[in-house]
């Protein structure tokens, strides 16, 4: 059984929004809970998928776990060491082993540096290899991400989307990480290039024994690459379990909606003539809302079809009884009173 490389318990992260220019002095701010008590663990050489609509806090979790943001509360244990409150200096050697691939294709690429210099700098962050060793390692990195040698002389602005992502990955591999948080690695790419990057990430995991925290709203890709999937809604995990169960026998109404909108997209077979029938009354219920701030209790209640069907039961909106994540068998957990 592979070792647990990362364990997160009760993670909370609030953002303070300063209201007005003088707010920094007078301190009148609005607290926005981006992550509201999240716990999960990652085992070595395994991938956990984190899905949810934009604004659900999945990116914030990724950044907080790597201590790019300081958590408000909770514990982060990496490879057996509690890194929640480590200082920057203590963190630095550990930071080598946990890296991040950012959603923005230009994230790690200084617009004023050529690809060769970007990779050389990454190789010399933690070690002082000689020039021969550096060029050998650069060639090795290029092979790992199958990038042509001629690209070394280019500036980032001269690369295509796929090439930028591959240089980004090579730059991260240069420091030999063990855990990679991949934040929407494929969403900015075209379909054919997405497929290349997904295959590349899976190959790297196999050859280098990497562990991924794979954050994305692209459900089929997440299901494909992840052993375990956690579904996020407004800062909390509402359901978590093996990828197949989440995709094919989801228990939480929100997961069902997510995957059903995916099914809509994929059902090529349903010929469009048949669907002339007006949209069913039931789906209309959760029709058009965007994120209404939950008043208390289950945060999904305002959009939840179960809540509508069961005649808006009080337990869902009673502030005291936010549904906890309870086990429904084989490690599958769900946070809903009626699931």
């Amino acid at each position, binding site marked *: 059984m592979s070792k647990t490389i990362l364990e997160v318990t009760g993670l909370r992260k609030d953002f303070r929004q300063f209201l007005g220019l003088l707010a920094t002095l007078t301190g009148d701010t609005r607290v926005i809970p981006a992550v509201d008590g999240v716990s999960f663990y990652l085992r070595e050489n395994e991938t956990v998928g984190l899905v949810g*609509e*934009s604004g659900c806090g999945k990116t914030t979790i990724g950044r907080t776990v790597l201590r790019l943001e300081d958590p408000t509360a909770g514990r982060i244990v990496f490879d057996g060491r509690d890194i929640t409150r480590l200082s920057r200096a203590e963190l630095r050697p550990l930071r080598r082993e946990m890296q991040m691939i950012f959603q923005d294709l230009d994230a790690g690429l200084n617009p004023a540096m050529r690809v060769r210099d970007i990779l050389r700098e990454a190789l010399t962050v933690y070690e002082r290899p000689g020039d021969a060793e550096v060029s050998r390692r650069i060639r090795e990195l290029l092979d790992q991400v199958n990038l042509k040698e001629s690209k070394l002389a280019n500036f980032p602005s001269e690369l*295509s*989307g*796929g*090439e930028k992502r591959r240089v980004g990955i090579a730059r991260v591999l240069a420091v030999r990480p063990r855990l990679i948080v991949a934040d929407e690695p494929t969403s900015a790419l*075209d*379909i*054919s*290039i*997405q*497929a*290349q990057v*997904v*295959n590349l990430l*899976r190959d790297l995991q196999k050859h280098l024994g990497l562990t991924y925290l794979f954050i994305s*709203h692209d*459900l*089929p*890709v997440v*299901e*494909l690459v992840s052993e375990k999937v956690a579904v996020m809604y407004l800062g909390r995990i509402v359901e978590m379990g093996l990828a*197949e169960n989440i*995709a094919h026998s989801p228990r939480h109404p929100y997961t069902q*909606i*997510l995957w059903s*909108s*995916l099914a*809509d*997209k*994929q059902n*090529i*077979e349903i*010929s*469009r003539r048949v*669907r*002339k029938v*007006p*949209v069913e009354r039931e789906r209309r219920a959760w*029709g*058009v*809302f*965007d994120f209404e701030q939950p008043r208390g209790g289950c945060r999904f209640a305002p959009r939840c079809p179960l809540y509508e069907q069961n005649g808006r039961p009080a337990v869902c909106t009673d502030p005291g009884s936010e549904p906890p994540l309870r086990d429904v068998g084989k490690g599958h957990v769900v946070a809903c009173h009626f699931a």
Partner: protein
Amino acid sequence: MSAPLLSIENLRTYFYSRAKRAFIRSVDGASLSVARGETLGVVGESGSGKTVTALSAAGLVTGAPGVIGGSIALQSNGVARNLLEGLERYVRVEEKEGRVVAVEKDERGWRRRVETLMAGVRGKEIAMIFQNPRAALNPYSTVGTQLVETIRMHTGAKGEREAKERAIHWLERVRIDSPRLRFDNFPFGMSGGMCQRAMIAMALSAEPSLLIADEPTTGLDATIQSRIVELLAELKAETGTATLLISHDISVIQRLSDRVAVMYGGTVVETGLAAQVLAAEAPARHPYTSALLAAIPSAETVRNKRYLQAIEGEVLDTIEVPPGCRFHGRCNRVTDAVRERCAGVEPPLAEIAPGHQVRCWLYPAPSKAP
């Protein structure tokens, strides 16, 4: 088959990269047409020229040199008008071995010409919705005012109150919650999905004969995306407006299009009925279209954790266009019989079945019946 509502013939729209002193051949001889009441889905990856084609049709291309060739015929109340009529008086193109090597264009003269050509067409006959809706709405005036502006310009409802009522009616039709309240909202106070609904209302309120939708769902969340697609399907059924739908998301194209055009490297490589071209198993299909469909993680691939069928190589950057077929570099169905032609000569768009055209040497035009 009545004459198509919009017919684009051999459209050529170039831009110029000062850094490399070379042409960016965004649209390099694209031809496609939309019949009245039909939805043509244009699918392609970034750099395939699909958005520039749409902008050229609406006369909204701003870069230099811009539109340099081709014709765009629009049927408006029975009369076919060429929206690029007189282009040759403003543009001179020099070609060498079939490739454009120099362009001379009177840009300001042509820009004035487009204004006169498109008067009464842009906004009235052809309406357009764009990709990031919140940026596409005027941040300095309320959604209602912008909607009323369109209605008073393009419909009979000239009066302030009458136009406002019609605007609110449209906000209801696009399922915006509490439309009377949203009427006075500013775009920054509304979500992406909400803004896109307002854009759709604004476009359709002018009762156009053609709606151009440029990546209407990109950038929205999956759940909101599927609702916008449903809304477009509903409104299309009700109003019968012809739609030119542009998207890189094949599932959106599948769900809304009657016919489909696949673009690659600035040209149309395949057109045909959506059911025909995008069906799971199609007898004859352009290698790029098949590869594109295969690259999408299907339920079956996902369940068996198999590798995705990626298309190797990079998306064609339309600065350095190779001779011969544009997809040749990445094509996995090149046979020895056609390899030499694929590399040397660009295949024509041949009609291999009624209404189904493919630009590939594997499917040459059936020899003319004797």
